[in-house]
């Protein structure tokens, strides 16, 4: 809870078991929270995709053996930026740089290896920290884009 952190205007902390149905919960809840900033519908969709991918990874890769705790922290900074952090205490990642490469997956045939690539694409900044056996923390930031003049 970030009531008093300097630079943070509002924040929500969430915890839930890594059940597939909670991917949708996290996606929607972060979108509800994000709607207090000036995001367009398309930007909100990008945020939803990024959250889905990060939480799906915790479900599928973080806890392959069964449900474990997923923690999502979302905040809105005074500067109008959305910060989303998805953390698990699961398997962790051996080589983070490799994991972030497009099409890299430890489950070839079954998955496409595009999740982290999409997050990187849709967020302004992505940070992944992980230790094998200890878990993974994915943090991404996104600001509403200054309104572009729409092509009629």
């Amino acid at each position, binding site marked *: 809870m970030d009531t008093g952190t300097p630079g943070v205007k509002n924040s929500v902390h969430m915890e839930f078991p890594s059940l597939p149905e909670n991917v949708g919960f996290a996606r929607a809840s972060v*979108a509800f929270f994000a*709607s207090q900033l000036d995001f367009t*519908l398309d930007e909100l969709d990008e945020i939803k995709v990024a959250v889905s991918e990060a939480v799906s990874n915790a479900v599928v890769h973080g806890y392959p053996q069964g449900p474990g705790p997923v923690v999502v922290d979302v905040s809105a900074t005074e500067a109008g930026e959305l910060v989303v952090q998805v953390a698990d205490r699961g398997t962790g990642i051996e080589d983070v740089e490799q994991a972030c490469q497009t099409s890299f997956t430890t489950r070839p045939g079954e998955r496409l290896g595009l999740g982290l690539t999409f997050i990187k694409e849709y967020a302004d900044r992505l940070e992944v920290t992980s230790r094998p056996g200890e878990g993974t923390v994915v943090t991404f930031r996104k600001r509403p884009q200054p*309104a*572009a003049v729409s092509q009629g």
Partner: protein
Amino acid sequence: IGEIRRYLRDNNPIRVSRSLRDVAYKALQVRDALVHRYAREPSVRQIADELNLPREDVVFALDAIQEPISLFEPIYH
């Protein structure tokens, strides 16, 4: 992302109640009207204000007409 929207609109196997669909439909209509009026993409907040609905209700309704857990890597098949 325009493609994503289309994908989401066209792939909606789950039943969504009439009234959620109505809110979502109105939100998309208002969005188009605002794009027209101001020649730029409105924020969700502006759409909700225009509809006189809580922001979250608009987001909820739009989420309801979408659904897939993960566009690219569904957990379930």
